[in-house]
């Protein structure tokens, strides 16, 4: 077999150093990040537990792993069988007011694309929720209820 001109006796140390540095790069970044953020409080990644959590549909552990299944189940109930009155995204927004902390941070970190908000609206601020409620009342009045 022909002798390689890529990895030779002369440049092997360079290649090995290059690959070793490449491997140690994430470790270095982590150590540097740790050293730089010394003294500061650890970043809180998740939203702090809401005191009203007991009124949630299920406990936090279940919701963390299975909320997507739950949402799909409820979507099917509403869209296909017309069963309303379950949980809604607006309902989630009542307690979890911050969409960035509640949805986006985790989803971004885990590279999971969210496709809820292409159609749905997440009521983030108190004013938004108020407007939404007013809008729903107006809608209900127009429907003649």
């Amino acid at each position, binding site marked *: 077999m022909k002798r390689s001109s890529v990895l030779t006796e002369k440049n092997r140390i360079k290649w090995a150093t290059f690959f070793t540095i490449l491997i140690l790069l994430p470790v270095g970044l982590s*150590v540097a990040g*740790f050293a730089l953020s010394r003294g500061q409080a650890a970043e809180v990644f998740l939203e702090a537990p809401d005191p009203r959590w007991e009124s949630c549909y299920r406990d936090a552990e279940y919701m963390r792993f299975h909320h997507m299944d739950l949402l799909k189940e409820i979507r099917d109930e509403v869209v296909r069988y017309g069963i309303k009155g379950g949980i809604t995204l607006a309902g989630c927004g009542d307690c979890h007011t911050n969409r960035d902390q509640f949805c986006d941070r985790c989803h971004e970190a885990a*590279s999971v694309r969210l496709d809820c908000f292409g159609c749905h609206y997440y009521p983030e601020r108190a004013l938004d929720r108020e407007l939404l409620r007013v809008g729903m009342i107006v809608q209900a009045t127009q429907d003649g209820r």
Partner: protein
Amino acid sequence: MESTELPAQADSVSLERMKPRNARASPNGRRPVFVDPDLQFIRALSRSGGDSLKKCMQCGTCSAACPLSPDSHPFPRKEMAWANWGMKDRLMKDPDVWLCHHCNDCSTSCPRGTRPGDVLGGIRQQCILHYAFPRFLARWVSRPVFIPLLLAMPAVLLGLAIRYRDTLGEALGLAVPGEDIIVYSFMPSLPHWLINSFFGFFGLLAFLAAVVGLVRFVRGVKKSEVWGDDPRPVKGLFPSIWSVFIKVFSHDRFTSCETDHSRSISHFFVFFGFIALAVVTLWVLTGPYNPLIRGEFVYPFSFWSPWKLLANVGGVAVLLGLLLMIWERLYFGHLAGTSSYFDWALVWTLFLVVATGFSSEVLHYLRMVPHRQVAYFVHLVFVFALLIYLPYSKFAHMLYRTTAMVMAERYGREAGTHLKGVPYAGEMTDVSSGAAGGTSADTGPVMADSMGGTGSLPPAGNGGST
């Protein structure tokens, strides 16, 4: 060469006792050698790549061609003699077998078509089998009949661990709901603590087994003949470990090979890719206890996280290196060497580990819910086969070769100077094998007669004429 004056049933221990104690006082200054051919060993060696063994006529071309062979007690000529005489004891103690990097410069320059490189590969396999503890596991790993059993064991154990995870967690006091700082678990039925303790337990067993094997190996190698009568260390233990570390990382030995030079590139890729994967795995496994990780540990990583990038690049590197290895072994067997089941087992296990790992990742991105977990389970079974059977498979070369290299470094067993300034030793091979083609037919039967004592194998009559 036959040991007719010795009792037929004499084992190696009694042979050791029968050696004269005052050997150095013998008239010609040489120790007498008692040969008790281990026919079973020769047969096993022939099966594991050394089938050309009996063609050897002890001309020594191989030792002259080898770029790694030291000037004193050079290899592989003496190993070929010992293997032909079935001197298993000496071969198992021999560090030189492990200094060989199987580049086949010797095999292509042999005038009789013997393949010392492949024979040494076979001896290394026998060495792993010899020193392994418990030995039956090594025997299982070296035979394809046991593939179903070897894969079923981790599958059943891991399945049981998942099935009884609550009982296990309570018994070990590990499963504390809500205390896990991992934000998202890839597979809720296989929590972080369960993987850690499962692989931690079996990894510890494998580590202890490897230590037993290595201690046996070091004890044996210390008694080897190659060190001479009065071996003295020329280097301290830690300096020799450091220089071996540099040699292994820079593939120093591989790059001085001629014939199968591309082996150095494929091994380079697999080596660094595997180290990258090991570093990422250790980082993830220590996640919940790692002081460098602040706040919660988000897992699985984002695609552009430095760790995920390193893991993907490492996986691709291992895959490329493996494909190069497989391609070499399939289409350039005469250069890359005969591949026995033992060799293929490691290549394919590593390939399956990487393939199932990537398929689990892709299925995860596709959000296929039972599929990604099933792929991950299969991946873990192969990871078990790779890591826990390490002391018994060809992967053990990592332990034995490094140890032998450290000992050789410590006792000054450097690669010889006989090839310095000869840039392309491989080019000489055509000349020598072509010229020797005619003479080998004459020497063949002579060798066959002299080797007749070992009996069971067909004498190498016509194999030498290329």
